[in-house]
């Protein structure tokens, strides 16, 4: 049977995490189709056709899919589902939003956030903020799965898939898009960066995040934050790393003025190397840090920037 993978994109760019979800699909089977649902998204289709291991790219280009409203996308995917044994999406906000709807419409369970594939029906996923790892078997005939990108290595992009346009449009008519307030940043995506530097409540205010920017510029790093820093309004919500924010696993993660609560660790403890800068030697973040520096961040950050 075939596997359908939902392509994560914003109508102009195929998100790199899709390449990891395709890798998860390859661990399950070989006949993989990629679905691009959007509007005026030709650039995404072109990129999708080059993803290795993908046999066909299905394109649903219609105004009804422009904002990937869950009601409309889930109807589309459910209609396509008859031909597939597995349906996969990346566990980012779009996939998390519409996939459980697909599962319910198909009357099957969803396996969320898998980090490994044991067999075509058995998967590994973190539970309890990553403090336990569950191996779960799906007993349904069809598997609806979201994939945590940090669990898989991206496939290459020198393929050449067949492109098939879908003409059927599914518009539930129950929801509409009002507006977006997108964060614009010149820096790499949190999920894609090989270095991430995050600030917590210890940063004291949003202005002080400038102290992280100089370092991030030198290291080509993305900037993240703890929930406390987001809640306090220092930085926007899309910078939150953690159990209920973004999950990152860069080569280097630098936590500054972050205590290391379970919920924050859940989002970064699979990083290759962790550095913690905190003035409290008892802070739990030091228990997961490869290199800890007990210091006042307002002294340490300028010095670090100057020595890189």
């Amino acid at each position, binding site marked *: 049977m075939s596997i359908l993978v939902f392509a994560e994109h*914003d109508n102009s760019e195929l998100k790199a995490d899709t390449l990891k979800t395709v890798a998860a699909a390859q661990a399950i089977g070989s006949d993989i189709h990629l679905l691009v649902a959007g509007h005026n998204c030709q650039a995404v289709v072109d990129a999708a056709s080059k993803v290795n291991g993908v046999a066909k790219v299905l394109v649903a280009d219609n105004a009804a899919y422009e904002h990937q409203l*869950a009601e409309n996308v*889930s109807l589309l995917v459910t209609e396509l589902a008859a031909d597939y044994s597995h349906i996969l999406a990346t566990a*980012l*906000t*779009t996939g*998390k*939003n*519409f996939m*459980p*709807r*697909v*599962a*319910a419409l198909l*009357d099957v369970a*969803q396996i*969320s*956030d898998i980090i490994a594939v044991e067999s075509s029906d058995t998967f590994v996923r*973190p*539970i*309890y*903020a990553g*403090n*336990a*790892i569950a*191996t*779960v*078997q*799906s*007993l*349904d005939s069809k598997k609806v799965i979201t994939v945590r990108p940090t669990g898989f290595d991206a496939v290459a992009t020198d393929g050449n898939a067949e492109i098939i346009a879908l003409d059927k449009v599914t518009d539930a008519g*129950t*929801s509409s*898009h*009002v*507006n*977006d*307030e997108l*964060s614009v940043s010149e820096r790499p995506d949190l999920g894609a960066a090989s270095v991430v530097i995050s600030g917590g409540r210890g940063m004291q205010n949003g202005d002080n995040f400038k102290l992280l920017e100089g370092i991030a510029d030198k290291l080509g790093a993305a900037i993240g934050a703890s929930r406390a820093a*987001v*809640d306090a309004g220092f930085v926007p*919500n*899309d910078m939150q790393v953690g*159990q*209920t924010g*973004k999950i990152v696993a860069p080569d280097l993660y630098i936590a500054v003025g972050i205590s290391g609560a*379970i919920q924050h660790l859940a989002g970064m*403890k699979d990083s290759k*190397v*962790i550095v913690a800068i905190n003035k409290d*030697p008892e802070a739990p973040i030091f228990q997961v840090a*490869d*290199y*800890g*520096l*007990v210091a006042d961040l307002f002294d340490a950050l300028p*010095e*670090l920037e100057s*020595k*890189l």
Partner: protein
Amino acid sequence: MKVLVPIKRVIDYNVKVRVKADNSNVDLANVKMAINPFCEIAVEEAVRLKEAGTATEVIAVSIGDKSCQEQLRTALALGADRAIQIDTDQNLDSLNVAKLLQKIVEEEQPQLVILGKQSIDSDNNQTGQMLAALTGMAQGTFASAVKVDGDKVNVTREVDSGLQTIALNLPAIVTTDLRLNEPRYASLPNIMKAKRKPLDVKAAADFGLDLTARTKLIKVTPPAERKAGIIVESIDELVEKLKNEAKVIS
């Protein structure tokens, strides 16, 4: 309008869970339990809608054994008007939870159902979306703002790239994110009052649903431990280690 708030009893968020020695599951014996934090935000939002005169009644519902009545009482103390316990000993998949909630939606006909976006035990992030699919309602997930406007509700959602606002026809489903509100503490008089508020118990088996498990838990293991690190004495030492030992910067 009626607002329905499904809530879940989970491990307290401050407690670090342990895996049982036989790897069959996590060990919840004698562990502090609480209302799932996202569900608490859902209750708070519903109560605020009532205080603003938008909602007329707030109904909390929980699925589980008798112990989840404790969390229902918490919801009542926070301002819910009445509660329903759907009694079961089974550990249900999200799909079966959504099917039971669909029955309550049919009985109660709420205009808005507010749920937490995920429970901090299974971390599934599924139930609200599944309930929306089963009831045919539109959904506003990961909400950081909810505004009811006539026969529509505007929901601002926390998404990977920032914020997105969508408009949903009512009745609709909302799932809460952390920034939606800051839940109040229940006052002592309200805790006392909550003891006298109505709490109905219905047996899950009486709904005539097939609640067969759709997933099987094969095993649960502890995560890989990180090996202990070192404390460096200076920025110079840190930079040296990152360059020459970890080789993550050049």
